[in-house]
Structure formats: C-alpha cells, structure tokens
C-alpha cells in the first residue's frame, strides 16, 4: 500500500524569513558564500572536510537566524541579506576557532573615501596612480570606470567569467587604495 502523499508545507505569506530559508536559490548562495570563505582560510584542509564544514556552518547560521526571526525588519533588510549577515558571523567564529586567528584590524574607512574622491574629482593623480598598477589591473579599472563597460562586457572581452572579472576589479581597486595611501603618507 502506498503511503498517502501530502503536499509540501508552504511558508506562510507573512513569514519572509521562513520563505527565504526554504528558497533553494538562497540556500545555494549561502553555501557558495560559506565555501568561498572556507577556501580562503582553510585552504590546507581536504576539499571533503571543507565541503562538510561549509554545509554545517550554513545550518548553524540558519538555526541562529530562526531563533532571532522576530528581530527581522523588512524595512531595513531583505531576507537574503539578513541571512548572509548571520552566516558571515558564524564563518568568522569557525575560521578563528580552527585557525586560532586573532581578529584583524579594520582598514580606516577614510582610505576608501580618499580613493573615491580621486575618482569623482578631476584628479590628475588618478592617472598617475593608474600608471603604477600592473598592466592587467590597469586594463580592468580603465574598462569599468573610464570606458563604462559592464562586467558582462569585460568578461566577454577578456575571455573570463563575470565573477572572475568582479574579483579582478576588486583586487585592482584594493591595490589602488594601497598606492593612494602610500602616496599620501609620502607627502
């Protein structure tokens, strides 16, 4: 005799946190977040260990979010963004527990604001700074910020994926920030 089939229990419409937790796309994104961060910090561990830990960390983050779901304020956050915030915390705790890594100092936000200022003002220093970047980094910054190309267009031109284009640009902007800070300190 076949067991009676029940329809899956749907999240109530007034519970966006539960709906987000049931959303397979959001869960896949959370898992990717977890895997990417563990690949940075636990690179020396076997892939199977990292994969298992990535899934465990997501479960732990979802459990904490569930306990705190009454605090969710839809006017201040999307459910997915809110869940990523929990995951970020659990990942930090895990990485520090395993690696015994102390908390790192935060880069002064002023350093980023100064870099933003160089882009928004007509700053001749910007071209000088760009000239100090390695050719591949200079190319991607110019394509995105000076020529106005999207990551999709850059990816097509450089034969890379859009996420790789995003990571390369982020590294180049970091290098620009470092160069700008060095230049500022040398004045």
């Amino acid at each position, binding site marked *: 005799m076949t067991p009676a089939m029940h329809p899956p229990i749907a999240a109530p419409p007034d519970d966006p946190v539960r709906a987000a937790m049931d959303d397979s796309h959001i869960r896949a994104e959370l898992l990717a977040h977890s895997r*990417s961060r563990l690949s940075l910090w636990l690179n020396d561990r076997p892939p199977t260990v990292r994969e298992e830990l990535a899934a465990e960390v997501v479960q732990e983050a979802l459990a904490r979010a569930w306990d705190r779901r009454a605090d969710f304020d839809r006017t201040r956050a999307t459910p997915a*963004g809110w869940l990523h915030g929990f995951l970020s915390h659990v990942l930090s705790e895990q990485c520090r527990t395993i690696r015994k890594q102390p908390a790192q*100092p935060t880069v002064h936000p002023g350093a980023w604001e100064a870099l933003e200022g160089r882009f928004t003002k007509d700053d001749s220093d910007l071209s000088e700074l760009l000239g100090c970047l390695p050719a591949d980094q200079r190319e991607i910054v110019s394509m995105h910020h000076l020529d106005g190309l999207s990551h999709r267009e850059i990816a097509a031109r450089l034969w890379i*994926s859009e996420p790789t284009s995003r990571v390369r640009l982020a590294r180049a902007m*970091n290098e620009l920030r470092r160069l700008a800070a060095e230049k500022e300190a040398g004045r």
Partner: protein
Amino acid sequence: MTPQNRLRVSLATARYLDALERDDQAALDTLWLQAANDPELLAAFRDIHAGLIEEHARRNATEVQNTVASAVEEHMPGAEIVRPEIGPVTVADVAAELFRHPPALLPAEAHALNERLRSVTDLVPADLGLDAVAAWAESKFGPGPARYWAAFRQAALKARMRRSADTEFRLAARKTAPTPEGG
C-alpha cells in the same frame, strides 16, 4: 548604471574582498548591513563568492596539472606535453610561434624585435588587416621591417583560427548532464 553607482558598488566590493581576505569581521558586519537592503551590492558580493570558488578550483587544477607534468617530464623524457591554449591571442603567443617557425629571409633586426616581443602580454588587435597591424605594432613597439610585420600578421591569424577551433572543439566535446530518462 550611473558612473556614481558603478563606483559605489565597485568600492564596496573591493572593501568586501579585502575584509574577507583579512578576516576583518568588523568591516564585514558594516558591509553586510549595507548589502542587506541593497540588491545590487548583494549580487556583487555573490559574484565575489563565485569568483573566489572559481579561482580556488583553477589553482587546484593548476597544481595537479603541474605535478603530473613534472612527473611526466622526469620519468618519460621522450613524451611531449601538449598544453591546451585558451583565451585570446597575445603578442607573446605570436612571437613564440615565429620563434619556433621563423619565416625565411628575415633580417637580423627582425629576429631581435621578435625576441623582445616574446615577453609582451598585450593582446593582438581585433583588426588583423596588414596596414592596421603594422600601424598598431609600430605605435606600441617601435619600427620594424615590413617583412616582419607581414609574418607577424600571418602568424596572428593562424593562432587565432587555431584557438577558435580548439575552443569550439572543447565546447562540442564537453560532458553534458544525463537527462532524467537516461538519454
């Protein structure tokens, strides 16, 4: 996307990657607070995660490839390791091709120029017309014999065609997921 918005997302993404790589939880908290209500930023952070996973997979694949290649080179000296060429054609690729198969009657200065170009990682231009190639190359690398630029253009065309054919072959030969029916 406006240039201001592009810059805002780009800077926040750079800060995010920096904070991830340094495990700077205070900066990550601030950034997740911003992304919680900003779908564009959330998408950018999602791309960073995907990009890091791709980077990690590439690094692992390269390590395995290098280990296998060095074992083959050590224990099977007669074997040739064929490395698949992917991506756009660079000046160095074309110069390496001309080094391996130099055209006849090239003057000595052409060989010297070719040697210099073997380390140039710039991409060859999209327009591979003879005049366009010569004008582009001379503006970037200085004057060279017309005979050399003609050979350079010919080698660039061949390299580009070969690479496109390789890419198409790999796309055609890629594994596909089995259908639910087992087909």
